[in-house]
């Protein structure tokens, strides 16, 4: 099967799963899509308000709470990400043809994966040093690089999310 054929097949499978799981029916109610959009952006705000501010603090762009204590807010960022994941999955399950072949959505997924890999690198390398960093101590360069990549990824994710509408494929 060609690459394009494989993508079409996957899109059709996602659509069938959306129908079978009831996601399509929920999203096609009067309030399904609007509520999912609200949940999606509240999740983004939680993510930027915790992980984004943690990144800015780690970059040294803002002063604020020490990194070890600020790190305790990260679970709220994870909660925000889960809200985005759940609502985003509903969008894709309800209308896969608008997303799977949409370049903005594909780049968005790549950037989410990059943010995920970056997070794994952070926790496997400098996280323990950051967690035990004394108040106002200089942040290791590696942690600053991780923070820049993280924030840039999330802003890129938001940018792609905003332009998905502009790149929706035409339905044949």
């Amino acid at each position, binding site marked *: 099967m060609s690459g394009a054929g494989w993508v079409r097949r996957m899109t059709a499978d996602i659509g069938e799963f959306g129908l079978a799981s009831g996601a399509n029916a929920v999203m096609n109610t009067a309030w399904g899509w*609007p509520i999912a959009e609200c949940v999606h*952006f509240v999740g983004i*705000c939680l993510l930027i*308000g915790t992980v984004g501010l943690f990144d800015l*603090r780690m970059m040294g762009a803002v002063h604020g709470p020490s990194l070890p204590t600020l790190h305790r807010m990260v679970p709220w960022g994870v909660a925000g990400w889960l809200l985005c994941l759940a609502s985003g999955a509903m969008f894709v399950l309800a209308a896969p043809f608008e997303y799977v072949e949409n370049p903005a959505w594909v780049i968005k997924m790549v950037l989410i994966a990059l943010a995920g890999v970056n997070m794994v690198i952070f926790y496997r390398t400098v996280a323990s040093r950051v967690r035990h960093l004394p108040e106002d101590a200089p942040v290791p360069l590696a942690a600053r690089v991780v923070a820049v990549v993280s924030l840039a990824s999330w802003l890129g994710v938001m*940018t792609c999310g905003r332009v998905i509408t502009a790149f929706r494929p035409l339905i044949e």
Partner: protein
Amino acid sequence: MLAAFAWIEQTRPSLFMREDFSAYFIVLIFHAWGMAFLVGGGMAVSLRVLGVAAASPLERFAGFYPVMRVGAALAIPSRIALLVGYPAKALTNWVFALKFVCLGGAAWLVWRMRVELFPLVEAARALPARARWMAGIALLLWVAGVCCGKLLLYTSHMLTVS
């Protein structure tokens, strides 16, 4: 009022916002970034007052207020640009007014936290009981404001007058 909207729609900035593909989306992107920093920063301060990351001194969260100001500096002009493009769409919709009441109320509460609560903590005094109420209401208003913004598309009665 509709005549005024029709006049605005014929101005060059309004036509530019509607007809230039890049301009509209660039403004939308800046609005999303600005809102995320403004609302996200406000949520972080509200969560801290509610007791999240309690080991972190509250007064140090003052460092996040400049981030919120940058967020507002992106969100407000971009909102005005969108308004210039589609004045009737927003200004004939009560959800748009509700969005501003919610976000304005939340911003006011977060500012009151800065001027009322932070000095108390700096003076090693306990937070009053209403501090949690302020933070809880601010958090609800941030969420409500964001939701109103997202619902604009679904509740507007008209796109343009002309």
